[in-house]
Protein backbone atom coordinates (compact mmCIF):
# COMPACT_ATOMS: atom_id res chain seq x y z
CA UNK A 1 0.00 0.00 0.00
CA UNK A 2 2.81 2.34 0.84
CA UNK A 3 4.70 1.90 -2.42
CA UNK A 4 1.48 2.67 -4.25
CA UNK A 5 1.01 5.85 -2.25
CA UNK A 6 4.67 6.86 -2.72
CA UNK A 7 4.47 6.37 -6.48
CA UNK A 8 1.20 8.33 -6.67
CA UNK A 9 2.58 11.16 -4.55
CA UNK A 10 5.72 11.45 -6.67
CA UNK A 11 3.71 11.36 -9.88
CA UNK A 12 1.40 14.08 -8.59
CA UNK A 13 4.27 16.26 -7.38
CA UNK A 14 6.19 15.93 -10.65
CA UNK A 15 3.17 16.65 -12.84
CA UNK A 16 2.22 19.62 -10.69
CA UNK A 17 5.75 21.04 -10.75
CA UNK A 18 6.06 20.83 -14.54
CA UNK A 19 2.62 22.27 -15.28
CA UNK A 20 2.91 24.97 -12.67
CA UNK A 21 6.35 26.16 -13.79
CA UNK A 22 5.23 26.41 -17.40
CA UNK A 23 2.42 28.64 -16.20
CA UNK A 24 4.24 30.50 -13.41
CA UNK A 25 7.33 31.60 -15.37
CA UNK A 26 5.50 33.95 -17.78
CA UNK A 27 3.12 35.06 -15.02
CA UNK A 28 6.01 35.90 -12.66
CA UNK A 29 7.87 37.72 -15.40
CA UNK A 30 4.79 39.83 -16.04
CA UNK A 31 4.37 40.57 -12.32
CA UNK A 32 8.05 41.45 -11.95
CA UNK A 33 7.94 43.86 -14.89
CA UNK A 34 4.34 45.09 -14.69
CA UNK A 35 2.96 48.07 -12.90
CA UNK A 36 -0.38 49.55 -12.02
CA UNK A 37 -3.48 48.19 -10.28
CA UNK A 38 -3.76 45.06 -12.44
CA UNK A 39 -0.45 43.82 -11.08
CA UNK A 40 -1.54 44.30 -7.46
CA UNK A 41 -4.80 42.43 -8.04
CA UNK A 42 -3.06 39.53 -9.77
CA UNK A 43 -0.42 39.35 -7.06
CA UNK A 44 -3.11 39.26 -4.37
CA UNK A 45 -4.94 36.44 -6.17
CA UNK A 46 -1.71 34.47 -6.54
CA UNK A 47 -0.99 34.79 -2.82
CA UNK A 48 -4.55 33.76 -1.80
CA UNK A 49 -3.73 30.05 -1.28
CA UNK A 50 -1.19 31.10 1.36
CA UNK A 51 -3.89 32.45 3.66
CA UNK A 52 -7.01 30.49 2.69
CA UNK A 53 -7.68 27.12 4.30
CA UNK A 54 -7.08 24.39 1.69
CA UNK A 55 -10.60 23.15 2.31
CA UNK A 56 -11.97 26.40 0.86
CA UNK A 57 -10.04 25.89 -2.35
CA UNK A 58 -11.03 22.24 -2.45
CA UNK A 59 -14.68 23.10 -1.90
CA UNK A 60 -14.86 25.64 -4.70
CA UNK A 61 -12.94 23.35 -7.01
CA UNK A 62 -15.50 20.62 -6.37
CA UNK A 63 -18.43 22.96 -6.91
CA UNK A 64 -16.94 25.20 -9.60
CA UNK A 65 -15.56 22.40 -11.74
CA UNK A 66 -18.43 20.01 -11.12
CA UNK A 67 -20.91 19.00 -13.82
CA UNK A 68 -23.30 21.84 -12.90
CA UNK A 69 -21.13 24.71 -14.24
CA UNK A 70 -19.98 25.63 -17.76
CA UNK A 71 -16.23 25.24 -17.08
CA UNK A 72 -16.98 21.98 -15.31
CA UNK A 73 -18.88 20.64 -18.33
CA UNK A 74 -16.04 21.74 -20.61
CA UNK A 75 -13.55 19.84 -18.46
CA UNK A 76 -15.85 16.83 -18.38
CA UNK A 77 -15.94 16.96 -22.18
CA UNK A 78 -12.14 17.20 -22.46
CA UNK A 79 -11.21 14.64 -19.80
CA UNK A 80 -14.14 12.30 -20.32
CA UNK A 81 -14.68 11.98 -16.58
CA UNK A 82 -15.49 14.37 -13.73
CA UNK A 83 -12.62 16.10 -12.00
CA UNK A 84 -13.63 15.01 -8.53
CA UNK A 85 -12.05 11.83 -7.16
CA UNK A 86 -9.61 11.59 -10.07
CA UNK A 87 -5.88 12.10 -10.53
CA UNK A 88 -6.41 15.07 -12.89
CA UNK A 89 -8.56 16.64 -10.19
CA UNK A 90 -5.66 16.34 -7.78
CA UNK A 91 -3.34 17.97 -10.32
CA UNK A 92 -5.68 20.94 -10.85
CA UNK A 93 -6.09 21.39 -7.11
CA UNK A 94 -2.33 21.11 -6.45
CA UNK A 95 -1.46 23.58 -9.20
CA UNK A 96 -3.79 26.18 -7.70
CA UNK A 97 -2.76 25.48 -4.14
CA UNK A 98 1.01 25.63 -4.84
CA UNK A 99 0.82 28.67 -7.13
CA UNK A 100 2.34 31.13 -4.63
CA UNK A 101 5.24 28.76 -3.93
CA UNK A 102 6.26 29.02 -7.56
CA UNK A 103 5.39 32.64 -8.24
CA UNK A 104 6.85 34.32 -5.15
CA UNK A 105 10.46 33.04 -5.57
CA UNK A 106 10.30 33.57 -9.33
CA UNK A 107 9.13 37.18 -9.00
CA UNK A 108 11.88 37.86 -6.48
CA UNK A 109 14.39 36.18 -8.80
CA UNK A 110 13.32 38.19 -11.85
CA UNK A 111 13.30 41.44 -9.88
CA UNK A 112 16.81 40.80 -8.61
CA UNK A 113 18.19 40.82 -12.16
CA UNK A 114 19.35 44.33 -12.99
CA UNK A 115 17.79 45.94 -16.08
CA UNK A 116 21.26 46.54 -17.51
CA UNK A 117 21.58 42.94 -18.77
CA UNK A 118 18.42 43.04 -20.86
CA UNK A 119 19.35 46.52 -22.04
CA UNK A 120 22.78 45.30 -23.06
CA UNK A 121 21.17 42.43 -25.00
CA UNK A 122 18.78 44.83 -26.74
CA UNK A 123 21.74 47.02 -27.70
CA UNK A 124 23.21 43.98 -29.44
CA UNK A 125 20.00 43.54 -31.42
CA UNK A 126 18.28 40.89 -29.29
CA UNK A 127 14.49 41.12 -29.23
CA UNK A 128 12.72 41.05 -25.84
CA UNK A 129 11.80 37.37 -26.31
CA UNK A 130 15.36 36.47 -27.35
CA UNK A 131 16.87 38.23 -24.36
CA UNK A 132 14.33 36.57 -22.06
CA UNK A 133 15.58 33.14 -23.07
CA UNK A 134 19.26 34.08 -23.51
CA UNK A 135 19.73 36.30 -20.49
CA UNK A 136 16.82 36.52 -18.05
CA UNK A 137 16.06 32.80 -17.69
CA UNK A 138 19.70 31.70 -17.20
CA UNK A 139 20.21 34.45 -14.63
CA UNK A 140 17.04 33.38 -12.82
CA UNK A 141 18.24 29.77 -12.58
CA UNK A 142 18.59 29.79 -8.76
CA UNK A 143 15.02 31.09 -8.44
CA UNK A 144 13.78 28.45 -10.90
CA UNK A 145 15.41 25.75 -8.81
CA UNK A 146 13.93 26.99 -5.53
CA UNK A 147 10.50 27.37 -7.12
CA UNK A 148 10.57 23.80 -8.50
CA UNK A 149 11.74 22.24 -5.25
CA UNK A 150 9.29 24.22 -3.13
CA UNK A 151 6.36 23.32 -5.37
CA UNK A 152 7.39 19.67 -5.40
CA UNK A 153 7.71 19.50 -1.61
CA UNK A 154 4.57 21.49 -1.00
CA UNK A 155 2.63 19.13 -3.24
CA UNK A 156 4.09 16.09 -1.50
CA UNK A 157 3.01 17.55 1.82
CA UNK A 158 -0.45 18.78 0.90
CA UNK A 159 -3.47 17.33 2.60
CA UNK A 160 -6.63 19.42 2.65
CA UNK A 161 -7.11 20.04 -1.07
CA UNK A 162 -6.27 16.44 -1.91
CA UNK A 163 -8.77 15.11 0.57
CA UNK A 164 -11.52 17.47 -0.57
CA UNK A 165 -11.04 16.94 -4.31
CA UNK A 166 -9.66 13.44 -4.46
CA UNK A 167 -11.11 11.67 -1.49
CA UNK A 168 -9.17 8.63 -0.38
CA UNK A 169 -8.97 6.05 -3.16
CA UNK A 170 -5.83 3.88 -2.94
CA UNK A 171 -3.89 3.95 -6.20
CA UNK A 172 -5.92 6.82 -7.63
CA UNK A 173 -6.02 9.65 -5.13
CA UNK A 174 -4.51 8.33 -1.91
CA UNK A 175 -1.26 10.24 -1.44
CA UNK A 176 1.24 9.68 1.37
CA UNK A 177 -0.23 12.34 3.65
CA UNK A 178 -3.69 10.78 3.33
CA UNK A 179 -2.34 7.27 3.83
CA UNK A 180 -0.76 8.55 7.04
CA UNK A 181 -4.09 9.99 8.14
CA UNK A 182 -5.74 6.63 7.45
CA UNK A 183 -3.10 4.70 9.36
CA UNK A 184 -3.49 6.93 12.41
CA UNK A 185 -7.27 6.55 12.24
CA UNK A 186 -6.76 2.79 12.31
CA UNK A 187 -4.38 3.16 15.29
CA UNK A 188 -1.72 1.54 13.11
CA UNK A 189 1.14 3.54 14.57
CA UNK A 190 4.01 1.43 13.24
CA UNK A 191 2.96 2.01 9.62
CA UNK A 192 2.12 5.64 10.38
CA UNK A 193 5.61 6.14 11.74
CA UNK A 194 7.15 4.70 8.57
CA UNK A 195 5.00 6.88 6.30
CA UNK A 196 5.82 9.98 8.31
CA UNK A 197 9.54 9.19 8.20
CA UNK A 198 9.42 8.82 4.41
CA UNK A 199 7.87 12.27 4.16
CA UNK A 200 10.48 13.80 6.47
CA UNK A 201 13.27 12.33 4.32
CA UNK A 202 11.68 13.84 1.18
CA UNK A 203 11.48 17.23 2.84
CA UNK A 204 15.06 17.19 4.14
CA UNK A 205 16.54 16.16 0.79
CA UNK A 206 14.53 18.79 -1.05
CA UNK A 207 15.26 21.64 1.33
CA UNK A 208 18.95 20.75 1.42
CA UNK A 209 18.90 21.04 -2.38
CA UNK A 210 17.37 24.53 -2.13
CA UNK A 211 19.84 25.81 0.44
CA UNK A 212 22.93 24.22 -1.09
CA UNK A 213 22.39 26.00 -4.43
CA UNK A 214 25.03 28.49 -5.31
CA UNK A 215 24.66 31.45 -7.60
CA UNK A 216 26.52 30.76 -10.85
CA UNK A 217 28.99 33.53 -9.99
CA UNK A 218 30.73 31.07 -7.71
CA UNK A 219 30.35 28.11 -10.02
CA UNK A 220 31.97 30.25 -12.73
CA UNK A 221 34.92 30.75 -10.48
CA UNK A 222 35.26 27.03 -10.06
CA UNK A 223 35.07 26.25 -13.76
CA UNK A 224 38.17 28.17 -14.69
Amino acid at each position, binding site marked *: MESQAIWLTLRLAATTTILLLAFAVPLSWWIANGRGPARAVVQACVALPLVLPPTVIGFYLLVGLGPLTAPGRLLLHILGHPLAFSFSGLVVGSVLYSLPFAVLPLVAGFQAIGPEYVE*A*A*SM*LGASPIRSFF*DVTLPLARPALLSASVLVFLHTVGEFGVVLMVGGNIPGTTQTLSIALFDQVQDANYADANRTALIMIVFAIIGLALVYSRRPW*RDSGRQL*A
Partner: protein
Amino acid sequence: MPNPALEVSLRHQAGPLDLDVQFTLDAPWTCLFAPSGAGKTTILRMIAGLDHPQTGRVVRAPGSVLRVVLLDTDSRIFIPPHLRSVRMVAQRPALFPHLSVVDNVDYRMPPSLPEYENDDLLGPGLRLAEITGLCRVSHLLAKMPSQLSGGERQRVALARALASSFPADPLLLDEPFTGLEASLRDDIIHDLRIWTAERSIPVLLVTHDLGEVFTADAHVLKMESGRIVASGPAAEVLAPERDRLIQRLTQ
Protein backbone atom coordinates in the same frame (compact mmCIF):
# COMPACT_ATOMS: atom_id res chain seq x y z
CA MET B 1 29.67 68.24 -47.24
CA PRO B 2 28.57 64.62 -46.70
CA ASN B 3 25.20 63.85 -45.19
CA PRO B 4 25.17 63.61 -41.42
CA ALA B 5 24.87 60.12 -39.97
CA LEU B 6 22.46 61.08 -37.24
CA GLU B 7 20.27 64.06 -36.52
CA VAL B 8 19.31 64.46 -32.89
CA SER B 9 16.99 66.87 -31.17
CA LEU B 10 15.88 66.16 -27.62
CA ARG B 11 14.06 68.05 -24.94
CA HIS B 12 13.44 66.60 -21.52
CA GLN B 13 12.79 67.98 -18.06
CA ALA B 14 12.75 65.75 -15.01
CA GLY B 15 13.92 66.72 -11.55
CA PRO B 16 17.34 68.35 -11.67
CA LEU B 17 17.77 67.37 -15.31
CA ASP B 18 16.86 70.01 -17.88
CA LEU B 19 17.87 68.85 -21.32
CA ASP B 20 17.54 70.76 -24.57
CA VAL B 21 19.97 69.70 -27.29
CA GLN B 22 20.11 69.71 -31.07
CA PHE B 23 23.05 68.32 -32.98
CA THR B 24 24.07 66.21 -35.96
CA LEU B 25 26.81 63.64 -36.29
CA ASP B 26 28.89 64.85 -39.25
CA ALA B 27 32.42 63.86 -38.29
CA PRO B 28 33.55 60.22 -38.05
CA TRP B 29 34.01 60.76 -34.31
CA THR B 30 31.94 63.20 -32.29
CA CYS B 31 32.48 63.79 -28.62
CA LEU B 32 29.95 65.01 -26.09
CA PHE B 33 32.11 66.71 -23.49
CA ALA B 34 30.57 67.75 -20.19
CA PRO B 35 31.05 67.45 -16.47
CA SER B 36 29.36 64.54 -14.71
CA GLY B 37 25.65 64.81 -14.17
CA ALA B 38 25.07 66.98 -17.23
CA GLY B 39 22.75 64.44 -18.84
CA LYS B 40 25.20 62.96 -21.35
CA THR B 41 24.26 59.39 -20.51
CA THR B 42 20.57 60.27 -20.82
CA ILE B 43 21.17 61.61 -24.32
CA LEU B 44 22.83 58.36 -25.40
CA ARG B 45 20.06 56.29 -23.84
CA MET B 46 17.43 58.32 -25.68
CA ILE B 47 19.23 57.87 -29.00
CA ALA B 48 19.46 54.15 -28.27
CA GLY B 49 15.78 53.95 -27.34
CA LEU B 50 16.32 52.93 -23.71
CA ASP B 51 14.81 56.18 -22.39
CA HIS B 52 11.89 58.23 -23.69
CA PRO B 53 12.32 61.99 -24.07
CA GLN B 54 9.33 64.27 -23.48
CA THR B 55 9.79 65.70 -26.96
CA GLY B 56 12.40 64.70 -29.45
CA ARG B 57 13.39 63.50 -32.86
CA VAL B 58 16.20 61.17 -33.88
CA VAL B 59 16.77 60.53 -37.56
CA ARG B 60 19.33 58.19 -39.05
CA ALA B 61 21.04 59.24 -42.27
CA PRO B 62 18.76 62.24 -42.88
CA GLY B 63 18.80 63.51 -46.45
CA SER B 64 19.78 60.17 -47.98
CA VAL B 65 17.77 57.26 -49.33
CA LEU B 66 18.62 55.29 -46.19
CA ARG B 67 16.87 57.82 -43.97
CA VAL B 68 15.13 56.20 -40.97
CA VAL B 69 13.20 58.06 -38.32
CA LEU B 70 14.09 56.29 -35.08
CA LEU B 71 12.12 58.58 -32.83
CA ASP B 72 9.65 61.37 -33.34
CA THR B 73 7.43 62.31 -30.44
CA ASP B 74 5.32 64.61 -32.64
CA SER B 75 4.25 61.82 -34.98
CA ARG B 76 4.41 59.16 -32.25
CA ILE B 77 7.21 57.19 -33.84
CA PHE B 78 9.26 55.06 -31.48
CA ILE B 79 11.38 52.25 -32.85
CA PRO B 80 12.25 49.79 -30.06
CA PRO B 81 15.92 49.65 -29.08
CA HIS B 82 16.74 46.23 -30.54
CA LEU B 83 15.54 47.31 -34.00
CA ARG B 84 17.43 50.60 -34.11
CA SER B 85 20.74 49.16 -35.33
CA VAL B 86 22.48 51.44 -32.89
CA ARG B 87 25.23 49.88 -30.80
CA MET B 88 25.92 51.24 -27.36
CA VAL B 89 28.60 50.50 -24.78
CA ALA B 90 27.18 51.56 -21.45
CA GLN B 91 29.12 52.93 -18.52
CA ARG B 92 28.48 49.73 -16.58
CA PRO B 93 29.75 46.89 -18.77
CA ALA B 94 26.87 44.47 -17.89
CA LEU B 95 28.64 41.42 -19.31
CA PHE B 96 26.38 38.39 -19.23
CA PRO B 97 27.68 36.72 -16.07
CA HIS B 98 26.69 33.20 -17.10
CA LEU B 99 28.70 33.32 -20.34
CA SER B 100 32.45 33.19 -20.78
CA VAL B 101 34.22 36.15 -22.34
CA VAL B 102 34.29 34.57 -25.78
CA ASP B 103 30.59 33.72 -25.59
CA ASN B 104 29.86 37.28 -24.50
CA VAL B 105 31.73 38.70 -27.48
CA ASP B 106 30.20 36.15 -29.81
CA TYR B 107 26.65 36.89 -28.64
CA ARG B 108 24.60 38.18 -31.58
CA MET B 109 27.59 38.37 -33.89
CA PRO B 110 26.16 38.22 -37.40
CA PRO B 111 26.90 34.82 -38.95
CA SER B 112 27.87 36.11 -42.38
CA LEU B 113 29.95 39.19 -42.86
CA PRO B 114 30.35 41.09 -46.11
CA GLU B 115 33.88 42.12 -45.18
CA TYR B 116 35.07 38.52 -45.39
CA GLU B 117 33.23 37.90 -48.66
CA ASN B 118 30.70 35.70 -46.93
CA ASP B 119 33.30 33.23 -45.86
CA ASP B 120 30.90 31.65 -43.38
CA LEU B 121 33.46 29.15 -42.16
CA LEU B 122 36.34 31.45 -41.39
CA GLY B 123 34.70 34.89 -41.33
CA PRO B 124 33.34 34.83 -37.78
CA GLY B 125 36.60 33.49 -36.37
CA LEU B 126 38.65 36.12 -38.17
CA ARG B 127 36.33 38.85 -37.01
CA LEU B 128 36.41 37.59 -33.43
CA ALA B 129 40.22 37.47 -33.49
CA GLU B 130 40.44 40.94 -35.00
CA ILE B 131 38.03 42.52 -32.53
CA THR B 132 39.39 40.82 -29.42
CA GLY B 133 42.86 41.85 -30.52
CA LEU B 134 41.75 45.43 -31.04
CA CYS B 135 40.18 45.59 -27.58
CA ARG B 136 43.21 43.80 -26.02
CA VAL B 137 41.10 40.98 -24.59
CA SER B 138 42.47 38.02 -26.60
CA HIS B 139 44.12 36.56 -23.51
CA LEU B 140 40.86 36.64 -21.53
CA LEU B 141 38.60 34.63 -23.84
CA ALA B 142 38.25 31.55 -21.63
CA LYS B 143 37.57 33.47 -18.42
CA MET B 144 34.24 34.21 -16.81
CA PRO B 145 33.22 37.87 -16.29
CA SER B 146 33.50 37.49 -12.51
CA GLN B 147 37.25 36.87 -12.91
CA LEU B 148 37.91 40.13 -14.75
CA SER B 149 39.02 43.50 -13.44
CA GLY B 150 36.93 46.61 -14.08
CA GLY B 151 39.02 47.76 -17.03
CA GLU B 152 38.99 44.28 -18.57
CA ARG B 153 35.21 44.16 -18.31
CA GLN B 154 34.91 47.48 -20.10
CA ARG B 155 37.12 46.25 -22.93
CA VAL B 156 35.08 43.05 -23.28
CA ALA B 157 31.88 45.12 -23.38
CA LEU B 158 33.40 47.19 -26.17
CA ALA B 159 34.43 44.04 -28.04
CA ARG B 160 30.92 42.63 -27.66
CA ALA B 161 29.39 45.77 -29.15
CA LEU B 162 31.86 45.83 -32.05
CA ALA B 163 31.30 42.15 -32.83
CA SER B 164 27.56 42.64 -33.26
CA SER B 165 27.82 45.85 -35.29
CA PHE B 166 27.11 46.28 -38.96
CA PRO B 167 28.82 48.78 -41.27
CA ALA B 168 27.47 52.35 -40.97
CA ASP B 169 25.52 51.63 -37.76
CA PRO B 170 26.20 54.37 -35.21
CA LEU B 171 28.29 53.37 -32.21
CA LEU B 172 27.55 55.12 -28.92
CA LEU B 173 30.29 55.00 -26.29
CA ASP B 174 29.47 56.05 -22.74
CA GLU B 175 32.82 56.64 -21.03
CA PRO B 176 34.06 53.17 -21.97
CA PHE B 177 37.72 53.98 -21.35
CA THR B 178 37.50 55.48 -17.86
CA GLY B 179 39.09 52.56 -16.03
CA LEU B 180 41.95 52.17 -18.49
CA GLU B 181 45.55 53.16 -18.16
CA ALA B 182 46.26 56.12 -20.49
CA SER B 183 48.67 54.51 -22.96
CA LEU B 184 46.48 51.40 -23.36
CA ARG B 185 43.47 53.65 -23.84
CA ASP B 186 45.26 55.68 -26.51
CA ASP B 187 46.28 52.51 -28.38
CA ILE B 188 42.73 51.19 -28.36
CA ILE B 189 41.26 54.51 -29.47
CA HIS B 190 43.83 54.68 -32.27
CA ASP B 191 42.96 51.17 -33.52
CA LEU B 192 39.26 51.77 -33.07
CA ARG B 193 39.45 54.91 -35.22
CA ILE B 194 40.87 52.87 -38.07
CA TRP B 195 38.35 50.04 -37.54
CA THR B 196 35.32 52.36 -37.54
CA ALA B 197 36.63 54.36 -40.49
CA GLU B 198 36.97 51.18 -42.58
CA ARG B 199 33.31 50.40 -41.95
CA SER B 200 32.09 54.04 -42.04
CA ILE B 201 30.73 53.62 -38.51
CA PRO B 202 30.03 57.00 -36.93
CA VAL B 203 31.01 57.19 -33.27
CA LEU B 204 29.46 59.34 -30.55
CA LEU B 205 31.73 59.34 -27.52
CA VAL B 206 30.62 60.67 -24.17
CA THR B 207 33.37 61.66 -21.78
CA HIS B 208 34.68 64.19 -19.33
CA ASP B 209 38.29 63.23 -19.91
CA LEU B 210 40.36 65.70 -21.94
CA GLY B 211 43.00 63.12 -22.89
CA GLU B 212 40.36 60.91 -24.46
CA VAL B 213 38.96 63.75 -26.56
CA PHE B 214 42.33 64.83 -27.90
CA THR B 215 43.43 61.26 -28.63
CA ALA B 216 40.22 60.58 -30.50
CA ASP B 217 40.70 63.78 -32.48
CA ALA B 218 36.94 64.17 -32.33
CA HIS B 219 34.56 66.93 -33.25
CA VAL B 220 33.56 68.29 -29.85
CA LEU B 221 30.13 69.26 -28.60
CA LYS B 222 30.64 70.98 -25.28
CA MET B 223 27.69 70.75 -22.93
CA GLU B 224 26.80 72.78 -19.89
CA SER B 225 23.68 72.29 -17.77
CA GLY B 226 21.80 70.42 -20.45
CA ARG B 227 22.63 72.73 -23.38
CA ILE B 228 25.31 72.55 -26.04
CA VAL B 229 27.34 75.70 -25.58
CA ALA B 230 30.12 75.19 -28.12
CA SER B 231 30.86 72.99 -31.11
CA GLY B 232 34.05 72.54 -33.11
CA PRO B 233 37.44 70.82 -33.21
CA ALA B 234 38.84 69.83 -29.82
CA ALA B 235 41.80 72.21 -30.08
CA GLU B 236 39.42 75.16 -30.45
CA VAL B 237 36.50 74.33 -28.18
CA LEU B 238 38.46 72.85 -25.33
CA ALA B 239 41.45 75.21 -25.42
CA PRO B 240 40.64 76.81 -22.05
CA GLU B 241 40.26 73.41 -20.37
CA ARG B 242 43.49 72.20 -21.92
CA ASP B 243 45.42 75.29 -20.87
CA ARG B 244 44.09 75.01 -17.35
CA LEU B 245 45.19 71.37 -17.21
CA ILE B 246 48.65 72.13 -18.59
CA GLN B 247 49.03 74.97 -16.14
CA ARG B 248 48.12 72.73 -13.26
CA LEU B 249 50.55 70.03 -14.41
CA THR B 250 53.49 72.40 -14.95
CA GLN B 251 53.11 74.28 -11.70
